[in-house]
């Protein structure tokens, strides 16, 4: 393959100034909300070991960028932020401070196979609340994600909430073994109703319960979940009570119209062990982010604690909020040798007043008119004029 001069590796993008500026604003707004909610920001390395983060991250193996270090160890470009943060939190330093609240704004890398244009490097912004297994922690991160979206002025954002563990228990109640449950999961993840209904007919489910089983796929509020809860199953009941309580907290925080409780909702990320959620907003055909409880991931780092969090995709948020580039105040001062002193003084003065000023030696510009057109105001300080 010959590589053209302007080509970039598959999925890599340049951020032009307009995008870079929007991103910087988004970062400032987002991280300040995160910090206000009591989270500390941290940064983890770009490179991690394949053996640890690479395997734990739940990102498909063929989506990892792999390389070798000088010792021959396989490294990966970090594919997500949750697992590195879990690693940091499980280390000695932070273990004694549980629960810890950590936030991040970082780029992650996922190799793309389909249609070149999809980004293989993108920024994520999110939080992890580690060491708290109460439902208040789940509610906290959902409300925080909601607040970020609200601050960004994203219209009709919607959260879809499911519960991995509760769903697992209910599926077991239908007499399914783990292999069958996984098939059902796959249909749920891709919301393949047609596939699910034909699968349901092949599974060993009592004919009298078939209709109820198929109904699993079409719930939208917590109360509907009740019909599958076995009143004699203590675990199911306590999880269900938690969900009802969570709903109460979220309703109280003004999210009542923004949430769909879909019992069949599920993530392809296998490390989620409890509540899972995904975030959508008008203006993007793709989800804006997702989150949930991942107690199992912490266990892999040798820590038996609860953890929950979310990550939002900055590129998708940007797609929604950056529709119109606004005209900003930007002054151009064109000068030549004669106007030099005056121009430098003027630039200094204006900048001190908070005006954005570009100072340009006029003879160096090839097309004065086109170049001037990029600015809201032009001052010419040339001796000849």
């Amino acid at each position, binding site marked *: 393959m010959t590589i053209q001069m302007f080509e970039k590796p598959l999925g890599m993008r340049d951020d032009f100034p307009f995008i870079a500026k929007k991103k910087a604003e988004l970062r400032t707004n987002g991280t300040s909300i995160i910090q206000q909610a009591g989270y500390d920001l941290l940064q983890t390395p770009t490179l991690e070991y394949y053996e640890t983060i690479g395997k734990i991250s739940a990102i498909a193996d063929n989506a990892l960028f792999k390389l070798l270090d000088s010792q021959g160890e396989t490294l990966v470009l970090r594919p997500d932020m949750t697992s590195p943060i879990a690693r940091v939190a499980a280390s000695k330093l932070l273990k004694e401070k549980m629960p810890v609240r950590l936030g991040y704004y970082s780029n992650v890398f996922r190799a793309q196979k*389909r249609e070149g244009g999809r980004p293989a490097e993108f920024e994520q912004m999110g939080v992890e609340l580690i060491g708290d297994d109460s439902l208040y922690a789940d509610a906290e991160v959902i409300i925080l994600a909601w607040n970020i979206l609200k601050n960004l002025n994203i219209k*009709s954002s*919607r959260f*879809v909430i499911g519960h991995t563990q509760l769903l697992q228990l209910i599926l077991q109640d239908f007499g399914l073994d783990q292999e069958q449950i996984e098939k059902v999961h796959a249909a749920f993840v*891709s*919301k*393949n*109703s*047609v*596939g699910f209904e034909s699968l349901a007919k092949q599974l060993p489910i009592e004919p009298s319960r078939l209709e109820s089983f198929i109904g699993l796929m*079409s719930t*939208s509020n917590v109360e509907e979940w009740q019909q599958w809860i076995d009143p004699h199953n203590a675990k199911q009941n306590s999880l269900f009570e938690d969900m009802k309580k969570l709903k109460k907290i979220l309703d109280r925080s003004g999210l009542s119209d923004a949430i*769909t409780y879909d019992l069949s909702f599920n993530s392809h990320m296998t490390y989620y062990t409890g509540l899972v959620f995904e975030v*959508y*907003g*008008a203006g*993007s*055909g*793709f*989800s804006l982010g997702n989150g949930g409880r991942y107690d199992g991931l912490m266990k892999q780092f040798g820590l038996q604690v609860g953890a929950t969090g979310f990550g939002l995709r900055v590129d998708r948020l940007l797609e929604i909020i950056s529709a119109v580039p606004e005209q900003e105040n930007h002054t151009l001062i064109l000068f030549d040798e004669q106007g030099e002193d005056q121009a430098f003084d003027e630039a200094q003065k204006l900048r001190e007043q908070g005006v954005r000023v570009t100072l340009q030696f006029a003879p160096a510009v090839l097309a004065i008119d086109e170049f001037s057109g990029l600015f809201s105001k032009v001052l010419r300080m040339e001796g000849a004029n």
Partner: protein
Amino acid sequence: MDALTIAMPKGRIFEEAYELLVKAGYDLPKELDDSRKLIVEAPNENIRFILSKPMDVPAYVEHGVADIGIAGKDVMLEHDRDVYELLDLGISRCYIATAGMPDTPMNEVTPRVATKYPKVASQYYRGKGEQVEIIELNGSIELAPMIGLADRIVDIVSTGKTLKENGLVEYEKIVDITSRLIANPVSYRLKQKRITELVEKLRKQASV
């Protein structure tokens, strides 16, 4: 009422699906006079139809420029797109099968298969443990075995008439195909009420 954009394949599937929607009680314009139009509005229902190539419907839906769409299962198997498959409409029923000249075994040295569905074909033969070379063609697939380009073809069969007319016979059936109602995941959540209502109405009409 949320505006709904529906991507539809041009031609027969569009007509069948349109009829299905009318039967389901949707107030759509009676006459579709200009068949070359790419966008058809149904203002009474706040619905807009986008007419595209059948192969492209899932792409429109995946990117969310269409909220829902009608796509053949064959297209969905060939192009793995992130869309929700909500309903089997039971229309445009056919199947994908292998076919070739009568009584001819596969070439043992270099078995070749011509198809419009390289992914489906490759998956099928790999699943059987057969190593074949896949040749992707865009049309007149039947020609391939007749002129010796391939031993087998993998293609859509609805009546079997085209095969017969070209002296080919069907060997193995691979998978049944019908048209499906698909949805963009975000639209499905943001316009859930409207979309589920449509699914329920169509479910009653669908012949399955």
